């Protein structure tokens, strides 16, 4: 039993949806994590387009809440802007152990996340990220840099949200050879297909409903055209199957063509239609709407994600969980932070 808690100083780069979720769970779980894991988690800085706020003694719960809700140029953000610090100043100059990179995904350039992650690793900090872009584009470069610097790069939140998939394969199933991995990796598509099948409603109608509920983005093309699933598959191919895949290697079809008639015909034949991402050890990467038998574990409804891992020793293992949501993504980030702190 440790007498004194070890302090883990954290910065959060990108203080939107996921970043503020991380701040909330770190605040909420602080005492519990200290008791169970002997770690004192401290958020020493947050940064996004609104500015950079730093407190080397740790930002208070109250300040973090205000920053989450605050608008650019108002309150703490106004003061922050006056100081003129950049996110890279926070990453490089402020002493801390873990950088949480939670800026939005850009699959064309990977920026600004790519520069943040590289700078963090070069400054000797561990990185926990939810950002798919840098991982899909520069996986090998980033992992090699992390290895050279003896630092950890973890990204559970980038694939499958709350659903533990990367650590399931790398840690819990260590020693197993992974043969294939297939599943539903996009909650928006799953919601749309589930509603269409259950209510017999047309695609456009359900998409509109999903937008109103905040399940689909205003521009849902990345989700419904399969791009988001494809990017996650690339990350899985590279991290779980040690390949050097890029987005171009994935055969992608989305759900925009699916009709209510097709869902009804599928149902009559004993199937549901799901957008399935599939990757195997031969390097086959495919995203397509597929017929899933109603009794198959991959048939999960609503916004749930699911993944079935086929291994040589353990056989098939299926995990089901919430793929999106600030607290759900933060759950994966928090686990990665705790793992990193305990192993370094």
């Amino acid at each position, binding site marked *: 039993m440790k007498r004194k808690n070890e302090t883990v100083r954290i910065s959060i780069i990108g203080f939107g949806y996921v970043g503020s979720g991380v701040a909330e769970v770190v605040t909420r779980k602080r005492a519990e994590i200290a008791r169970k894991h002997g770690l004192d988690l401290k958020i020493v800085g947050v940064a996004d387009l609104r500015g950079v706020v730093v407190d080397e003694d740790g930002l208070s719960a109250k300040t973090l809440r205000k920053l989450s809700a605050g608008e650019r140029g108002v309150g703490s953000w106004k003061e922050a802007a006056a100081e003129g610090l950049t996110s890279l100043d926070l990453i490089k100059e402020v002493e801390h152990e873990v950088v949480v990179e939670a800026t939005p995904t850009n699959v064309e350039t990977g920026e600004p996340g790519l520069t943040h992650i590289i700078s963090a690793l070069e400054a000797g900090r561990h990185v926990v990220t939810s950002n798919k872009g840098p991982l899909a584009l520069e996986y090998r470069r980033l992992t090699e840099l992390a290895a050279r610097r003896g630092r950890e790069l973890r990204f559970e939140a980038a694939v499958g949200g709350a659903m533990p998939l990367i650590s399931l394969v790398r840690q819990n199933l260590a020693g197993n050879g992974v043969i294939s991995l297939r599943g539903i990796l996009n909650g928006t598509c799953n919601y749309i297909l589930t509603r269409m099948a259950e209510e017999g409603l047309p695609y456009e109608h359900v998409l509109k409903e999903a937008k109103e509920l905040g399940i689909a983005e205003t521009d849902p093309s990345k989700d419904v055209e399969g791009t988001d699933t494809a990017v996650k598959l690339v990350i899985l191919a590279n991290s779980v199957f040690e390949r050097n895949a890029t987005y171009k290697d994935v055969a992608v079809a989305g759900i925009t063509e699916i009709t209510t008639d097709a869902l009804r015909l599928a149902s009559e034949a004993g199937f549901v239609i799901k957008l399935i991402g599939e990757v195997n050890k031969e390097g086959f990467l495919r995203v*397509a709407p597929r*017929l899933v038998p109603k009794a198959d574990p991959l048939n999960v409804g609503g916004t749930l994600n699911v993944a079935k891992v086929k291994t040589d020793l353990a056989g098939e293992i299926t995990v089901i969980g919430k793929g999106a949501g600030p607290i759900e993504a933060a759950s994966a980030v928090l686990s990665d932070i705790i793992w990193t702190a305990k192993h370094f």
Partner: protein
Amino acid sequence: MKISMDIELKDIPGQLVLALKPVSDFGGNILSVLHQREKKTPSGKIPVQVVLEIAETATAERRLEGLVEELKKQGVNVVRVGKERLRESVVVLLIGHIVHTDLRETIDKIDRTGFAEVVALTLSMPGVNKKSSASVTVSAVGREELKAALKILEATADGKGIAVVSPI
């Protein structure tokens, strides 16, 4: 009468010809031959699946028996002779302008293979200019043939701008 036959050949030159020659001698017409080199048996033999047609006359059964006897005499291992030829089935969905892009031709491409057939089709046409949806059941003599038939269906549909939803 269509017959599918699983045979095993020794891995030395000339064996396939040796095994196929008697088929015509007994009045059979070969529809497909699947030579599965990569699936050697534990005893080192090569499995081959042959689908053939024998004219349905009074002597059909006798000719078939004669053929099997002859193959055995040639040292070919006959593992299975099946008259129930379509053993594997799969359901796929097609979405798009299925009828206007010649549904019949799409089906014919499968039927013409000799090892697979479209055995059921349900079509839903909501309106003249709207996309149709169809569920198609394809049956084939074996698992490999079924995969091959699905590939043909996918390629045909792709060329016509029809989306295919296949099972996991």
